[in-house]
Each structure stands twice: as structure tokens, then as C-alpha cells.
């Protein structure tokens, strides 16, 4: 990557390179610091590289916990010591970038490929991957998968090969449900996409993106509505607040999703989520906002029945949403000690001492206080 950045410096006439890395990755910061030190000692960085009149200095900027700083104009603002808020484009960062100068901004993986392509030639590189997506791609394969970790595969490798041949399938004997691709801005893929080649064209056809290169595998016990709520909670918190569609829209979408997983979903919620999602995607200022609704829209597309079950039947098919669980007392096991009734915060449990107690489902708030207090394991959650 360092070599790639130096080459980019030579190509564009830049003498400073900045690496923006998350502070949450201290190992990456330590390794980059060491690599820069070593390259400088060897005369591969710094003044008059290898005796030429070209000089290139490398700086490390640790992020301070703002997801939106992955967006080009927000990233440059952050390196300038400002709030990392995106601005309207054009001008793009190649025209007005860091310190108002033209800036070449690329991903780590892109720079890491540069020296190999120069050494082995572009023809060699193009032989790997597919026609329009050349080379290899790294993915972070995680979640409910047997072998989790970073992988590098030729572009166009199928999802099946990645999940089963490399990943070893779903962990703990679970059943595959979906895989979230491309991070919180991405979308989900399902069983029907097992033979889909992972490349730019094929993914865009099914409404997904390679994005961050994240592949999070989810099993049958994962609730897709809750996952969509989780992503929306994240993007809503990470919205910088500059443009209205993202700032207000993500908040409203999150409110609806929170209601649905709490068992308070209403008729029309799915339609409203779609309408809001499409409006935010069309009108938000930056990539974060434009893709914020991605996980919601894609889970509605592939798992609309799960949304319907939450909204109309007040059931979570995956059995994951706490507020949609039914908590009951097994009369066979209950000794009638009344401990559950005394611990219930809403007085939903009634009964006579030494006789089985009963939970009034209308009053129960599914807090689980009875469950953890029962000395006879007589209380069940379904």
C-alpha cells in the first residue's frame, strides 16, 4: 500500500500522503506506524527517495469514531481537523480535496494492488476475475459461519464457494438464512443467490453492493426485521445531521422499525418504510444517506413475510424479538411459591400459594423477570 501511494504521488505530483485509519484498530495503527518508519529508514519514503529528486511524506490520521468519515469530502474535512461532514459535489475531491488542493483518494485495497499490477502488467491482472470486475477482492467473512476471517478471492467467485467451500458453512449446525454484503449500506442476499458471482455487475443487478467487503452470515435464528432495525439504528446515530432527508428520514424509519419489533407495528408500516427509504435514497446529500435505507429495502424485498408476521400476527418467526415472545408457566413444574408474582413489575402473574400460577398475557410486558427468578425452571419463553 505504501508503495502504491508513493507511485500515486509520482503520477500526480503529490508529496504528502495521508492514511486515515480507525482508532478502534490499534494493531493496524501500530503496524502502519512501523512500516512507515522502516520504509523511511530504507530511503523509500521521505526526502529524495532512492536518490531521486522526488520526496514523499506519509502521515497517519486516526479517526475519532465517525462512520461518515469514510465519505471522501467528510474524510478530508476530518484530516483538516474539522467536523467530518460531507459537502455538496461537485467539486469533487480530485478538484477540491484536502486543504482545497486536488486530491487522489482511494481505498487501501486499491493502493495495495498498484505495485503488483505494475510489476506483472495489466494483462496479467485482467486475467483474474471477470470482464468488468478484474482482479481479486478481499472480504471479511463473519457472523454465523464456521470459518470466520479475511479472505481474498478472484472477483466473480460465487457466494456458494465463499460460504461453503471457504467458510465451511453455517456454524453450530445452523441453517443458512441470509448474508449481509457491503456493510450497513449494503443489502442482503439469500439462498437464491448462492450461484451469483460476486462482482460489481451481478451484485448491482440484485440491488446489492460490494461496499466495505463485509459478508455477515446469518442463520435461521436471526430476525431480519431486527437486523434492519440494527442497521438503521447505526446509520441514524452516524448521520452527521447536515441534510434533512438523512437526519429526519433515518430517525422516522428507526421509529417505525422499533415499533415493529416491539409488537406495535401497524398496517401501512411496510409501505411507509418503502416510501421513506426511496425518498431518502433519492434526496440525501452523501453516500451514507443515499444507502441508509438499503438494508431495510432489501430485507423487505426478500423477507416481507417476516415483516408481516411481526406487524399482523405479532410474532417473530425467528424467535429473536423479546417483546414478541410468549412467556408461560408450566403447571406441571410450578410449585406455586409466588416468587414470580412478587417479582413481576406489572402484576401480570396471579395464583394461589402451592397451586400453579398463571401469566395474564394481556398484561405481560415480556421483561423476563419471572423467568430468571423461578427456582423450579417452570417458566418458558417461546
Amino acid at each position, binding site marked *: 500500500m505504501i508503495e502504491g501511494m508513493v507511485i500515486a504521488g509520482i503520477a500526480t505530483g503529490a508529496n504528502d500522503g495521508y492514511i486515515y485509519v480507525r482508532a478502534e484498530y490499534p494493531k493496524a495503527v501500530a503496524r502502519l506506524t512501523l512500516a512507515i518508519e522502516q520504509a523511511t529508514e530504507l530511503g523509500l519514503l521521505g526526502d529524495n527517495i532512492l536518490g531521486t529528486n522526488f520526496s514523499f511524506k506519509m502521515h497517519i490520521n486516526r*479517526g475519532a469514531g*465517525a*462512520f461518515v468519515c469514510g465519505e471522501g469530502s467528510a474524510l478530508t474535512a476530518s484530516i483538516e*481537523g*474539522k467536523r467530518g*461532514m460531507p459537502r455538496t459535489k461537485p467539486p469533487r475531491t480530485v478538484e477540491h480535496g484536502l486543504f482545497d488542493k486536488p486530491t487522489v483518494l482511494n481505498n487501501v485495497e486499491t493502493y495495495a494492488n498498484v505495485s503488483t499490477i505494475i510489476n506483472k502488467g495489466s494483462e496479467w491482472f485482467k486475467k483474474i476475475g471477470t470482464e468488468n470486475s478484474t482482479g481479486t477482492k478481499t472480504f471479511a467473512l*463473519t457472523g454465523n459461519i464456521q470459518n*470466520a476471517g479475511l479472505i481474498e478471492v478472484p472477483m466473480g467467485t460465487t457466494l456458494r464457494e465463499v460460504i461453503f467451500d471457504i467458510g465451511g458453512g453455517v456454524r453450530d449446525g445452523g441453517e443458512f438464512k441470509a448474508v449481509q454484503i457491503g456493510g450497513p449500506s449494503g443489502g442482503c442476499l439469500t439462498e437464491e443467490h448462492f450461484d451469483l458471482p460476486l462482482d460489481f455487475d451481478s451484485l448491482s443487478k440484485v440491488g446489492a453492493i460490494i461496499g466495505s467487503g463485509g459478508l*455477515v452470515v446469518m442463520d435461521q435464528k436471526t430476525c431480519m426485521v431486527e437486523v434492519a432495525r440494527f442497521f438503521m439504528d447505526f446509520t441514524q446515530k452516524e448521520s452527521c445531521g447536515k441534510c434533512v432527508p438523512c437526519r429526519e428520514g433515518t430517525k422516522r424509519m428507526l421509529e417505525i422499525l422499533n415499533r415493529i419489533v416491539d409488537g406495535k407495528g401497524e398496517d401501512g408500516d411496510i409501505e411507509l418504510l418503502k416510501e421513506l427509504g426511496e425518498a431518502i435514497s433519492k434526496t440525501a446529500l452523501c453516500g451514507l444517506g443515499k444507502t441508509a435505507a438499503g438494508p431495510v429495502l432489501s430485507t423487505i424485498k426478500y423477507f416481507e413475510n417476516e415483516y408481516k408476521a411481526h406487524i399482523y400476527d405479532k410474532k417473530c418467526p425467528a424467535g429473536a424479538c423479546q417483546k414478541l415472545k410468549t412467556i408461560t408457566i408450566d403447571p406441571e413444574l410450578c410449585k406455586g411459591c409466588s416468587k414470580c408474582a412478587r417479582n413481576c413489575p406489572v402484576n401480570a402473574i396471579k395464583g394461589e400459594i402451592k397451586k400453579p400460577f398463571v401469566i395474564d398475557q394481556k398484561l405481560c410486558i415480556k421483561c423476563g423477570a419471572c423467568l430468571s427468578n423461578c427456582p423450579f425452571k417452570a417458566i418458558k419463553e417461546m
Partner: protein
Amino acid sequence: MTAFDYTVLDRAIEQFGNKESSLIAILQYAQEHYRYLPKEVFPYLSKKLGISEARIYGVATFYENFSLEQKGKYVIKVCDGTACHVRHSVPILEALRKELGLSEEKKTTDDLMFTVETVACLGACSSAPAITLNNEIYPTMTPEKAVALVKSLKENA
């Protein structure tokens, strides 16, 4: 009441340079020393760097990593990135909060011993669910293991 130690800020300015673009690095340095950003930091840096206090405050409140409130001796971060989330990080968070009497709003115990907060990805996705204790990673956690960790810290305190 001891006098505020401004030398930390002087050292940070010396290391990163007296310029606006060093602001985030200076604030990070300050936070690593004070464990939060005390209010004294703002007027001092404003004068030294020639940036308005409002601007510095704006940066400090924009980024998640900066805290204007004092943190505990032990800072526990529960990773709630996607990989940890689908591997059940939330029950770990809930167990820790329950054990320490904390909540989403109240992140630090009154005796300033423990802070419990969430973080979006520690980059330890293959050891999900992960937590950190003062930046040291504890892999493949369970609610029980997390509570046991807190109990052992309390006993040794």
C-alpha cells in the same frame, strides 16, 4: 483541589504541531491522558491554536470517541458491530449494565470505577462477540464470562 495540568496539552501541541489540522490528534492525546476532555481544555487550546472555543467544542462533540464526562478506571467497550451483533452481543451488554447498575444513559458508575459503552466494530470479527477492557480485547465473550470479569475486577480493587 490541585491545579490543572496544562503541560499535557503543551506536549500534544509540540508533538502534532500548532495548527488547526492537528486538533483531532491533540484532543485524542489529551483524552488518553485525562481519560476524558475536561472543560479546561477548550479555552486553553482556543488561545494556543487560534481557533474559537465553539469550533473545538463542535469537533469534540461530533466525534463519538471524545467524552466530556469523566470515565471510569475500567472502560469496557462491548462491540456491537454487525458480526458481534448477530453473534449475540446485546445480552452481554445487558448483563454488564445489570451487574453494574448502568444503562444507555448512565454509562459510568458513581464511584468512577466502571464505564460500559458500545463500539461499532473492533476489527475482531472472527472472535465475535468481542469486548475490550481498557483497550485489551477479550474474544468470544458470553454474558456469564463478562460478569465474571467485572466481579474479579471488583474483588481486586
